[in-house]
């Protein structure tokens, strides 16, 4: 063991610590998943499908968008998983419009026909062809019968069977019939070369996603599965967690880096200068330590708007104090060691001593504390996102905002929107914490 360098010795110790190693594995897996988000998620995190709002985990549906357009000579705007060449078949089921209401009033033995329009009110009709619309007659007693397949004319006496004896008013309600349409398209070179609607050529077809029942490519059905369900706006939760993790982890890493740079520089300069400079710099740290910075960060974010830059600067600036203390302590203890004295006596400049001799020797505690800072920063960012001050990037929310949205939707049968983002976040934080503590034990075995 003694022949090993301190780093490989620390690595050996870390490998024996199974908690730290599982932390390392989980954290690495999370980072990999978040980096590979575009390939792991079934669709974009911002893609809404309003008819699929708040669907439970595992739901599948035909692979399509909210609005789908197919036009000759254009690439198909449907699924992102269509091949460049092949045969596309889409089955839809539309029910054109809502139900129509007609009113038949019998006055002095003849009928007066009108249509109830929800916007324009009653519109008089001369004729009503019941053979073309499937309608039901709503009777006074509340029961309904199928309307006779007849042509009604205003001014004619009512036909047999339309009205019950003694009735003078009948409401006819047409039930919308589902109307199945099949669309065939030939794809070649990424564009549509032939487009047919129910067998007839058509230059352009626009489809609503909610009407699509089946999407086939070369006889193979394309379905989309939302492994973790969807959020209220029908966006895929898995995609939102993965892309949101990019924001959370990036904020954690960058803000930690900011705090590292400030803290190491400040602590090293303070410890190396010593004397009055050191005392002044450290009492400034003492004063700042007692300032509850989170409140200042909140003010800053509200008044400057939530941008990445402000967030990095604010969170990094909050976290550097402890780092400065740690580095200062290290530098102080190294300052009078022989190798530093040797460097000083051979005329090496101050900055070179600092950056070449002192700071590299503080790297162990810096790594440990840096690792432990990452989950702290992620937690703070999520805290800000939770109270509505998070950053959004192209409509993608960070984990804190996802948890807040899940909490807003929380009912006993709508838990997935809270539980999965919460699990992702808690798992990542725990993993990095375990890794950090393992690193501390591995790099400084005396502490155990």
């Amino acid at each position, binding site marked *: 063991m003694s022949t090993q360098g301190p780093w490989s010795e620390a690595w050996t110790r870390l490998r024996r610590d199974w908690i730290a190693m599982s932390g390392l594995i989980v954290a690495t897996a999370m980072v990999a998943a978040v980096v590979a988000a575009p390939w792991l998620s079934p669709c974009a995190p911002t893609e809404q499908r309003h008819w699929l709002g708040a669907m439970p985990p595992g739901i599948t549906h035909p692979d399509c968008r909210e609005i789908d357009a197919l036009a000759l000579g254009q690439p198909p705007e449907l699924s992102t998983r269509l091949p460049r060449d092949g045969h596309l078949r889409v089955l839809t089921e539309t029910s054109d419009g809502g139900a129509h209401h007609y009113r038949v009033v019998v006055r002095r033995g003849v009928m007066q026909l009108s249509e109830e329009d929800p916007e324009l009110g009653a519109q008089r009709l001369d004729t009503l062809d019941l053979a073309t619309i499937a309608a039901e007659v709503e009777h006074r007693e509340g029961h309904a019968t199928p309307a006779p397949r007849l042509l009604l004319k205003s001014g004619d006496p009512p036909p047999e069977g339309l009205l019950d004896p003694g009735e003078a008013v009948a409401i006819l309600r047409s039930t919308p019939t589902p109307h199945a349409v099949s669309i065939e398209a030939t794809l070649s070179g990424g564009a549509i070369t032939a487009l047919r609607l129910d067998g007839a050529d058509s230059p352009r077809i626009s489809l609503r996603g909610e009407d699509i029942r089946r999407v086939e490519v070369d006889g193979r059905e394309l379905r989309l599965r939302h492994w973790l369900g969807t959020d209220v706006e029908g966006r895929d939760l898995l995609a939102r967690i993965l892309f949101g993790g990019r924001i959370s982890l990036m904020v954690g890493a960058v803000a930690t880096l900011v705090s590292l740079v400030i803290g190491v520089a400040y602590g090293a300069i303070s410890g190396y200068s010593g004397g009055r400079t050191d005392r002044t710099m450290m009492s400034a740290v003492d004063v700042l330590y007692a300032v509850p910075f989170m409140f200042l960060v909140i003010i800053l974010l509200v008044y400057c708007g939530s941008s990445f830059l402000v967030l990095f600067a604010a969170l990094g600036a909050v976290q550097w104090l402890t780092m400065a203390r740690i580095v200062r302590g290290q530098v102080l203890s190294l300052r009078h060691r022989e190798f530093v004295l040797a460097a000083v006596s051979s005329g090496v400049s101050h900055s070179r001593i600092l950056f070449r001799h002192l700071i590299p020797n503080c790297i162990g505690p810096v790594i440990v504390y840096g690792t432990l800072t990452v989950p702290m920063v992620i937690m703070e960012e999520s805290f800000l996102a939770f109270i509505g001050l998070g950053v959004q990037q192209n409509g993608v929310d960070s984990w804190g905002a996802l948890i807040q949205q899940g909490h807003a939707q929380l009912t006993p049968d709508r838990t997935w929107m809270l539980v999965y983002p919460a699990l992702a*976040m808690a798992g990542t934080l725990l993993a990095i914490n375990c890794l950090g503590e393992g690193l501390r034990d591995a790099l400084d075995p005396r502490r155990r």
Partner: protein
Amino acid sequence: MGSYVLRRLLMAPVVLLVLATLSFFLMHATPGGPFDAEKQPDPVVKQALMAKYGQDQPLGVQYVRWLGQMARGDFGPSMKQRARTVNEIIGHTLPVSLLLGAVALVLALGVGLALGIIGAVRADTLWDRSAMVLSTLGLGIPPFVVGPILALIFAMYLGWLPVAEYYGPAHPAYLVLPAATLAIPFAARIARLSRAGLLEVLRSDHVRTARAKGASEVAVVLKHALPAGMLPVVGFLGPATAYLLTGSLVVEKIFAIPGLGREFVESVTNRDYTLVMGTVVLYGAVVVVCNLAADLLLGVIDPRVGRS
């Protein structure tokens, strides 16, 4: 000891001044003001409002005047809730937050110390490991994850406790979940600190002497080791109040509790200058006073502190 107390006492106002100054200038440096509504107000009206609240004065004058008011404990009128003063709003909401914080603190101390003592006395056993795993979980999982999940389990599935809202101290059931949510991270931290502190003391000479004298294990732990082992916990109680206050922002939002935390978040989004700054300074004062109290307490318990 004397100089130590003096130094601590002198530092407190400096910290407060730094905080007040930072929040004042941050607030005024950023675009948008309290009288900028979505509908632009009449310039004359705006001018009159600015004059009434002293916003038309130079920044330096505003700053000095505001500091003077603060020193007398007057936070001024609220700029958004026009009929109320900041003092009234704070007086209304602070007791709720204080009660919540106090309950959480007691809960955290009880659970945390229990876990810490178990961990230290039964060091490196399954008991110790489980206590430490629990504390890692408590520290690593943020309150805005714990809170909704506790609400889901205990309020929605089991129906034992109310989901949210608060109706005064006469209905303590409404405080259980929020206080537990707030307490968990502290309990975890206290468990770690007290375990570490106690372990160190249990290995020290005076404990060995006590054991050698034939004192029972319970007496050794409770009488001889615990007071000295609690030093790190006492040191933590100061900074803990800062966490308690920020934590209560989230907890009050989750459980819809009408405390100062919720008021603060709302005042920030409303750009209610005076209310935000009053709250920040008040929070700062609470943190500073608690830090000071913890430091002084530490100095009293452990005479070595002042001399180092």
